[in-house]
């Protein structure tokens, strides 16, 4: 009994800091409609800054001043970010907003590395609250009790702020109808900046409060962001009270889940989220939100199968690729195989995104499932590579069928967040379930069959698979199924009114995409000979997204080019600099700010005008609808 009460109290204490981070995200989304991926990074920054300040400021007053000051400093950084970056991308598609804020996260990670070094830091304990209070005979840290009180206090303060101040009323009004608030003459710019600053303050405050409890680490940002996504999805985007309820629910689940299923307590979180979303697709207290701007739409020109000339060029390129083993050494061939695997992976995502209009933020899940599926087939059942290469895609398929069943019920930003949450859950299972997956130590010794063990044959194998996969996915785009899928993407209402089921069509697309990603993952396991949980981590998903964006989200298979360029660039970057995340993050932010309609969309907007004038011989004044204007 005492144990349960102690666990319950620990859960409540965790809930408080989770709530602080989550409600900030929720408030920001409510007003600006941006899902701030960088929220976790600010949470982490809050902890780091608080660590430095509390080391210098002493005593009870110094400690608390340090915590609050840390939150305030980080909030100012947040305000600067809002003014410099976010203001430029409020009109951009959701995917780009998520990507840009993820780019910021990457940059912050490296900056933290530069400023505070690579090691985990242990901050001071809160003066006067170092001890523990016995509750039914078990010691409960005094600091935890403080946190338990703090959560509801912050909730109350926010409620007062939102209901009793003019500013709060404006924020709530903007959450319901931004245009109307703007029409009433409220300065939107400063309202958005203010809300963003408040949200970041809360996140940094939540992070700072953690330093007496846990070490300050570089993983804090991505760990918290996944939980925060789960919390706001369950609580309902934009709802503060919903975030509180969900934070308590999730934290208690974790606290008790460890007692029941010590190995895989996170599966519980997944199950609860799944059940909530089936019953209430918009979370406890959320309301349906209008689907925002999708990445493609009017910017897309009608797609055509390859002309004979293009097909011949592609065939020639494949031939050149097939001849590479005559020139390249084993390192070059392993890079080549890695690029080809990236091609399959990127193309699997492009099928889902470009043709299906489903912007997945968790495509790593299916890649990783394929890799683990193949690796476990070899490791546990001692089966040959050929079979493992079948099991890999099947694992990806099963994962996509399970997760997709929930995901396709949602759309837009909910879809993106849910896919990300599922990917994180898959990651944590691989990480926690040590008996099966080897946890952090991974699975070693996943080697190809003898016939494929030389670098050249393995390269040819991946080339063959990549060619078949890309051609098959391209074929699907132009099949009846592909037309139905594009129909659903272009106009779900029209599609339903001509007999096409949105959910079923998207579900099938999701499954196909997951299968192809699983195939890429299986090859990856054999290429590397080992597999670790980080293939399932967020950066893998982001890699795929950037490849698709580079290649052009409005194209059928531009991601093939995107994958080749991106993989070569990142391999080079890794060897050229220690600050690859800073460079990559900066590159992603640049990409989004410079090409807010996607590269192809922005380029065609840039080119369409002059081309049109040239075609009409400069005779007419007619302007065609540019994608930049039309995709709103």
């Amino acid at each position: 009994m005492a144990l349960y009460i102690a666990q319950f109290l620990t859960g409540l204490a965790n809930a408080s800091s989770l709530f602080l981070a989550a409600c900030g995200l929720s408030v920001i989304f409510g007003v600006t409609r941006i899902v701030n991926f960088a929220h976790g990074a600010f949470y982490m920054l809050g902890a780091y800054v608080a660590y430095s300040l509390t080391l210098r400021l002493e005593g009870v007053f110094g400690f608390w001043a340090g915590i609050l000051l840390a939150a305030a400093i980080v909030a100012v950084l947040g305000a600067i970010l809002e003014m410099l970056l976010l203001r430029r991308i409020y009109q951009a598609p959701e995917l780009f907003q998520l990507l840009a804020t993820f780019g910021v996260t990457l940059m912050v990670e490296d900056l933290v590395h530069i400023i505070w070094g690579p090691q985990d830091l242990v901050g001071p304990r809160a003066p006067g609250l170092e001890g523990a209070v016995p509750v039914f005979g078990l010691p409960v840290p005094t600091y935890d009790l403080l946190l338990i009180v703090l959560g509801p206090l912050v909730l109350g303060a926010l409620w007062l702020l939102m209901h009793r101040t003019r500013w709060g009323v404006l924020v709530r009004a903007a959450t319901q109808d931004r245009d109307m608030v703007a029409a009433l003459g409220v300065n939107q710019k400063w309202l958005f900046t203010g809300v963003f600053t408040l949200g970041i303050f809360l996140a940094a405050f939540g992070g700072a409060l953690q330093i007496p409890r846990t070490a300050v680490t570089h993983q804090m940002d991505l760990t918290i962001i996944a939980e925060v996504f789960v919390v706001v999805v369950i609580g309902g985007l934009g709802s503060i009270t919903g975030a509180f309820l969900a934070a308590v629910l999730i934290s208690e689940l974790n606290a008790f889940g460890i007692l029941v299923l010590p190995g895989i307590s996170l599966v519980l979180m997944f199950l609860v989220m799944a059940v909530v979303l089936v019953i209430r697709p918009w979370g406890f207290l959320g309301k349906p939100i209008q689907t925002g701007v999708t990445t493609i739409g009017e910017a897309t020109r009608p797609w055509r199968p390859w002309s004979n000339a293009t097909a011949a060029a592609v065939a020639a390129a494949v031939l050149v690729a097939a001849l590479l083993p005559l020139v390249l050494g084993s390192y070059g061939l392993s890079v080549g195989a890695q690029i080809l695997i990236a091609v399959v992976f990127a193309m699997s995502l492009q099928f889902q995104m470009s043709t299906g209009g489903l912007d997945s933020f968790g495509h790593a899940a299916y890649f990783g499932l394929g890799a683990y599926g193949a690796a476990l087939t070899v490791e546990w059942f001692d089966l040959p590579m050929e079979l493992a290469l079948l099991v890999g895609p099947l694992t990806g398929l099963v994962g996509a069928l399970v997760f997709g069943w929930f995901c396709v019920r949602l759309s837009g930003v909910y879809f993106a967040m849910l896919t990300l949450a599922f990917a994180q859950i898959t990651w944590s299972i691989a990480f926690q379930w040590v008996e099966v997956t080897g946890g952090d130590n991974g699975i070693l010794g996943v080697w190809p069959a003898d016939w494929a063990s030389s670098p050249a044959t393995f390269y040819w194998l991946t080339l063959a698979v990549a060619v078949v996969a890309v051609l098959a996915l391209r074929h699907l785009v132009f099949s009846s199924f592909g037309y139905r899928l594009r129909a659903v993407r272009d106009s779900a209402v029209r599609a339903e009114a001509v007999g096409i089921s949105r959910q079923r069509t998207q579900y099938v697309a999701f499954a196909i995409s997951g299968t192809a990603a699983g195939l890429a993952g299986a090859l990856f396991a054999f290429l590397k000979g080992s597999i670790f949980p980080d293939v399932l981590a967020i950066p893998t998903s982001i890699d795929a997204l950037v490849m698709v964006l580079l290649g052009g989200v409005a194209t059928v298979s531009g991601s093939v080019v995107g994958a080749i360029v991106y993989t070569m660039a990142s391999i080079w970057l890794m060897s050229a600099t220690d600050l690859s995340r800073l460079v990559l993050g900066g590159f992603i932010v640049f990409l989004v700010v410079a090409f807010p309609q996607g590269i192809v969309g922005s380029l065609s907007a840039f080119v369409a005008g002059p081309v049109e004038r040239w075609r009409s011989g400069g005779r007419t004044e007619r302007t065609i609808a540019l994608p930049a204007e039309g995709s709103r």
Partner: protein
Amino acid sequence: MSAAPLLQVEHLSKSYGGVHAVQDVSFELHPGEMLALIGPNGAGKSTCFNMVGGQIPAGSGRVRIDGRDVSGLSPRQIWHLGVGRTFQVAQVFKSMTVRENVQTVFASRESGWGFLARAGQAHRAEAEAVLDLIGMADFADRPCADMAYGDVKRLELAMALANDPKLLLMDEPAAGMAPLERVELMGLTARIAKERQIGVLFTEHDMDVVFAHADRMMVLNRGRLIAEGRPEDVRQDPQVRAVYLGEGLVYDQAAAARRASA
């Protein structure tokens, strides 16, 4: 006019919170008949439409198509019963060409997964026949995104006709079109409806269109049907005149002045 009604609407109602959007609406529609549903903005026309098409679940009451109760069916299932519809704001597949839009409609009727067929080649002739019917054959290869709005509306009609429908639901088919285009589109619709014995239910604000083509019309005001009958009769109906020309309830001062002078 044949005896068996194609569409039977019985006591259809829908409320949003305290607002009775549609109240106790009943009517019938026969094959080959053009039935206009008119009324001021906010009268409940679109709600009515979306309940018949399955986009909005009916609050209460019943909708029968060919005698079959379709309450609770999805738009998809209603489509398979032979119902085509157009939307107030045209909904087409913007990333495709005109022909591909119609081909997609045919592709949706195929059974199975549809993984194998090359949809760009399939149903080409059928799609072109439909486009020819509404005079858009020359546009077949045009990207939808480049078309004028009036042509997009015509394309919507083509997509609805591709299903070989028994019943056409057209929510403001001529909205946003140039006057000449409106006359052409509705003339075309009326001709096809007569030829193929399609029942057409349409809403429209343009009274020229309504009086030129409707066989029968209904007037909806604040969710209730206030008049029904042949256009000439409805035109004379005092209640309808009041709704359209105003009965002075809003302009209290003017009404008071009139009463005073009377």
